[in-house]
């Protein structure tokens, strides 16, 4: 996916200049988060790029699909970059970072193993912040038509005349 998600049209070279790489594959710059390979980037307006990077990492840890790129997780949490979510995000990320510190890490993004991040999340599973994030992801991630091909799901079929001539009974292994 060589796609840059930004409204400012920042070039890829500009992007990587002055970025700090955080977490597994995320780079944070002034006002944006990007994939560390700079194939995509997302500008933030209300929350800090670091907060957005944390939300993206948290999303991946909630539903870790290793063949699905960060840009899809970013798309799922983009809506939290709003005036009304700003405070909740700030508090939520602060709580995550505090939990990470309690486990001896600098912050959530610097926890290297997924299992350790998942442990931190499990500790706050009942919180409104976690529940909002998880609930939003169920549709934000899995209802995105662009991720369906990763699951093999074919979506709408009416316009193609259904599957009557397109393999509704094509398996031979049983």
């Amino acid at each position, binding site marked *: 996916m060589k796609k840059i998600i930004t409204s400012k049209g920042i070039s890829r070279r500009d992007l990587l200049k002055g970025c700090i790489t955080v977490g597994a594959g995320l780079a944070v710059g002034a006002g944006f988060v990007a994939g560390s390979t700079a194939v995509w980037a997302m500008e933030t307006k209300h929350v800090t790029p670091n907060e957005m990077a944390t939300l993206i990492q948290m999303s991946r840890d909630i539903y870790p699909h290793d063949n699905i790129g960060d840009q899809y997780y970013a798309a799922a949490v983009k809506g939290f970059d709003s005036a009304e979510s700003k405070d909740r995000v700030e508090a939520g990320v602060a709580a995550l970072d505090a939990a990470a510190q309690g486990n001896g890490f600098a912050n959530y993004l610097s926890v290297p193993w997924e299992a350790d991040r998942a442990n931190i999340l499990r500790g706050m599973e009942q919180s409104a912040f976690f529940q909002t994030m998880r609930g939003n992801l169920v549709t934000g991630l899995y209802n995105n038509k662009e991720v369906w091909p990763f699951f*093999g799901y074919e979506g709408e079929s009416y316009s193609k005349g259904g599957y009557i001539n397109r393999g509704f009974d094509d398996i031979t292994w049983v």
Partner: protein
Amino acid sequence: MSAKFDLNDDGVVVVIGSGAGGGVLANELAQKGISVVCLEAGGRHLPQDYQNDEWGSFGQISWLDARTTSGDWRVAKDFSGLPSWIVKAVGGSTVHWAGASLRFQEHEFKAKTVYGEVNGANLLDWPIGLSELEPYYDKAEKKLGVTRTNDIPGLPGNNNYKVFEAGAKKLGYKQVHTGRMAINSQPRDGRTACQQVGFCFQGCKFGAKWSSAYVDIPQGEATGNLEVRTNAHVLKIEHDKKGKVTGVVYADKDGNQHLQKARIVSVAGNSIESPRLLLNSASTMFPDGLANSSGQVGRNYMRHMTASVYASFEKPVRFWRGTTMAGIITDESRHDPSRGFVGGYELETLALGVPFMAAFLNPGGWGREFAAAMDTYENMAGMWIVGEDMPQETNRITLNHAVKDQYGLPAPNVHFDEHPNDVAMRNHAWRQGAALYDSVGATQTYPTPPYPSTHNLGTNRMSAKARDGVVNKWGQTHDISNLFVSDGSQFTTGASENPTLTIVTLAIRQADYIAKQMAAKSI
């Protein structure tokens, strides 16, 4: 030509709801020359409007008015504001239904006699038996064009069915086939054959599946005796000093209220709204709500013992392709207490798209275990479990005065605690389902909990004696002779079969009864 009746016309039959019960009753009465006004809270959506998109379709026509939940069922935790999945549109839930159409078995009409006393269960025999319903089941199967009846061939099996059938045979099940489905396996009744689209739950865009939305309602309208008013939400049923109902108050799409007079009123708003409407119609004469001298209105809420089993395999199944539920095993639907529970259950094929699978596979689940299951989506097969659940007096619809709907009326609260019999049956079915898939090489099986209720039953139940229930064997309320109940809330017990064929059967039979009583001027 659709009829048009005056609000002051007190000779009409008012039918509330246009789904399986209301839509069929309205048509059947219209066919007999009786004037009918059908008031439907939702709008009219036809196949061209249906969407091959799970959440899109859900948002388009589901009943999303305020509702609350309580009790120990998992739905109250996972989907607290959405106890059931019901449609608000012309055709009601027959727009979304999958089409599985099974007759009840003889013994299921006599649950109390056959099962005996079950602790905590409010069991009762139906005041009717199979033989009385058989002629009407015949009519209903003809109307719906049910496969494997009336020489209509079965549907072809899709990939999901192939896995299901192979496992069933390995496990030694004898009765497995592609179901008795209200889905055309060949062109019939002016409608095409199933094109294996795979979005049966989202409304059949080809119209191959029976729905009252585009079968019974237009047929009734064509007689000139039926007027359907859409976006007409009934708020209250009125009565006179003699205790006879006289009409209904409804809100139109702009929220303006109207009073439609009536000779007879039939309530068919599905098993949450129907009792709620009777309760919301309380008056000084009927302080506990209409037709509630027994105190049973809203009680004995049943939702079927349900669950699912999904399984992952080494190779692709692509189970979303083709008819959603055309596959059944009926071996377990017998009554055989040696299994540790009374009553029985059916196993039926089921597939969900990625969006619904993510929401329902393990609600609230997350992390690597959940994602790993989703990663195998293409290689999944799935089945739904539907069995008889125990009626319990305390499982009930009540008015929640703390929460109001858009008209300022108290929202319904749906309380449900599982009976130990339900739990034992589910555990048995989960084991059988997993064993079935294991026998054909599943690498992983997932015992999936119930979804928001699609089968809602029992809240205005049928009884021989007025003190045991709300309606008599014709669906006529014991207390008020010109007030009827015409939906699944009449069910005395739930049986193990999907309910809609029986709802339709009862509606056809009720239409005969109402016509006779009207002709005899007894109502």
